[in-house]
């Protein structure tokens, strides 16, 4: 019920102002990456934007917003496991195989879709407040060091 509601909200929201949301996510994710010390020194953050054919437009928009935040964006339908500092999933169609490989990269995996949090490390939570939602299981599983500050502002994803 809850997810149905969230889904409904998401789509309502998306329908209302997908651009605005993408902009917030772009900005939020960039900051999370920065405070999580994934950023290499004197080097732009590289984000691998993984999308599918249904979400090309959104992916592009996202890429555009990310670039505006000084991020070097790579758009892939298949993730590049070597150079990216983080991955943003602009798709809901991701296989377990990929999922495992992404985890092994020990990079943060973001999803622009809130309902994809179970498969990503960070997504966006839209409630009374709009704030990040983090999946500590996956983060722990990927052995990624997380800045506790994020915990203070983020919603923790709990398994059902």
């Amino acid at each position, binding site marked *: 019920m809850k997810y149905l509601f969230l889904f409904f909200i998401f789509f309502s929201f998306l329908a209302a102002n997908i651009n605005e949301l993408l902009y917030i996510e772009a900005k939020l994710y960039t900051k999370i990456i920065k405070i999580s010390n994934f950023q290499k020194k004197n080097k732009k953050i590289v984000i691998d934007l993984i999308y599918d054919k249904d979400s090309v437009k959104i992916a592009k928009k996202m890429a555009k917003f990310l670039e505006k935040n000084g991020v070097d964006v790579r758009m892939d339908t298949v993730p590049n496991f070597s150079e990216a500092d983080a991955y943003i999933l602009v798709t809901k169609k991701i296989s377990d195989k990929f999922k495992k490989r992404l985890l092994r990269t020990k990079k943060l995996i973001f999803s622009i879709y809130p309902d994809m949090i179970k498969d990503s490390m960070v997504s966006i939570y839209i409630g009374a407040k709009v704030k990040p939602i983090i999946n500590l299981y996956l*983060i*722990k599983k990927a052995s990624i060091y997380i*800045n*506790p500050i994020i*915990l203070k502002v983020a919603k923790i994803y709990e398994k059902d």
Partner: protein
Amino acid sequence: MKKIKSLISFIDITFVVLISGFLLYIFVDIFNISKTLKEMQKDKIALAIKNEKETLTTLLKYNFTDELKNEIKKIISHSKDIKNIEINLSNRVFRFNSYESENKMSFKIKEGEIVVYYENNLIKRFFEKYFVRFLIYFLIFFPIIFLLFWYIRTKILKLNLLAKRLEKINFKKISSIEKVDAFYEIENITKAVNTLLKQVNLFYKNQKEFLHRIVKYKNQLETAQSISEMFSWDYDCKEKRFSIMGKNIKILNLKKIKTLDDFLSHFEEEDKKAFKKKLKSACLNNESFEMIHTFITDENKKFYFKSVGKFIKGKVIGVSLNVTEEIKRQQKIEFLAYHDPLTSLPNRAYLKEEFSRLLNIAKRNNKKIAVLYLDLDNFKMVNDTLGHENGDKLLITIANRLKSVLRKSDFISRIGGDEFIILLYGIKDKNSIKEVINKIVNSLKEPINIKQTPIYPTFSIGCAVYPDDSTNMDELLKFADIAMYEAKNKGKNSSKFINEELKKQVNEYYNITNELKSALEKEDELILFFQPQIDLKHKKVRGAEALIRWNHPKRGLLSPFHFISYAEKSNLITYIDRYVLKKAFETLKKWQKYFPDLILSINISPNEFRQSDFISNLKNMLNIYKINPNRLELEITETISMQDIAYTVNILEEVKALGFKIAIDDFGTGYSSLNYLKKLPFNTLKIDQTFIKDLEKDVDDLIITEMIVQIAKVLKKETVAEGVENKKILEIIKNLEVDVAQGYYFAKPMPKESFERFVRNFDYNKFE
């Protein structure tokens, strides 16, 4: 002193209490601060943990050990106070380090609890700073406060000392105190106290002198009151209290008087009422009063006091002065003013008042009043022979006898030496009056022994009756007087009622005396006539005797016979004497040039001769007219000259010393003693005309005249024969060797101009 001591104790206690209180306050404050700081620290820790609690739990829950450690490390490093954090979950425990202490806080969380171990660094830090500051402040302020306290305490002790000295001060002996401290305020207080002491000393001295003076004045006042026999009193109008001062008037026994009633009990009833009334009025109307009242002592002695009361501030303050002597004197004066001191009978003034009163009563009641004018016969002889003292005794006895025979309603008064007036009120008729006169005469039938000599006094009595003779008091008295004279003329020891003839004489008397007064004022009615005196030896005019004539405007020229007796009765003779003397001086002044050798003789009346200023008047006239006194001959009668010979000799000596001539007039008619005569310093003997005019017929007169001339010759005096009326008499007196002749044979008295002509044309041969 106790207060000051207790003040010092109080200050000490206060200081201790303040310090204790301060320390307690510090302690409590520290305790509170500590408590607060602890709470704050806990709050701070709680706040820090609260913010991190979820994060820490989450990190532990998901087993982010490194992140957890880093987070805790960060918390510890931020907090400084937190030393260790222990997270107890149901399934695991995480402990950051091994640090443990009693200071720990537990925070319940959903899955367990978080225990935080910490140190009280906040308190430590605070107190480190706090104690430093406290120490600094303490080291700075405590010595200051202590010094201040010590200073105040010391000064208070000094003040205490000063107070002790002040307490011991005997301001009668000490005029200043030493300063106990150089402290400005104490010095000022000492100065002020010394100034005050000086003032107190001065005040005491003044007060002492003042008291001394008051005591002195009080004594003086009491003495003065005692001397003046006065006392003062006051009466409190509200409290009705009466007090009396000046109790040293022993005779009044004032010490016994305690109340107003006591005081008033010594007053006569009438005075008591009057005094009470005045006192009440003074109280009610703020008035002053003055009254003379009686004061009767316990010994029943009566005094008179003059009391003056004045209302001052609710009290009537009064002074009472003994005026007994004054009142008695006044009564005596009043008595003397209305009574004869010798016989105590009413005098003329009283007589007039009483007579006036009786006349009014008689007029209203249609009654008669008889006025008896009594004159003692021959009283002068009694005085002369037995002396005035015995004369007075006689008068007293007679007065008593008169009183004894008269009714109480009758009024008797003595109006002169031997004159009495009796008023018989309500007398019926002349018979009744005669009855009274007879009683008076009978009362004197019994002799009065004076110096063992029986004297039979008699009265000449004149009587006038109201309203028969007159309704006027003065007229009635006058009529009675005239009637008395008439009775005396009748031969004494008799009485006479006034009648119409006498009344006529009286009226004539008053008319003449009034006209005489008028004549004296005019100075041209009374003129001098001059009768020549002829010097028989040298056959020339010696001078003249000045004789007064009254050129009466209606009756013509009047000789002295017509008016001198009236003048003597009315006392106008004195004025006539002076008038004549003045005219004589004027005449001689004029004669000085043309008739320097003429001697003017003038008669000096007995009245003038007895005047006290007789000599001084002569001197005065002499100074005014500057005449040769040797040309004025003053004639006194033989009778006058022989009365009171010593007085006569003295006066005549003085007259002679002034240079005037003196003649004894009417010689031979009196009772001259040759012994006395030789003592008198006279120049001329005037032989009375009664001897001269009958010389040719009467051998006795001839012998007497011859003897008089011989006496004069012996005494080396000049002789003047008066009344030479013919040639035969002239021849006789020439043979008798009389020096000067005066009479109608030569000339009658004539006016001045005629006399001057007579002198110029005189030829003695015509008379030989």
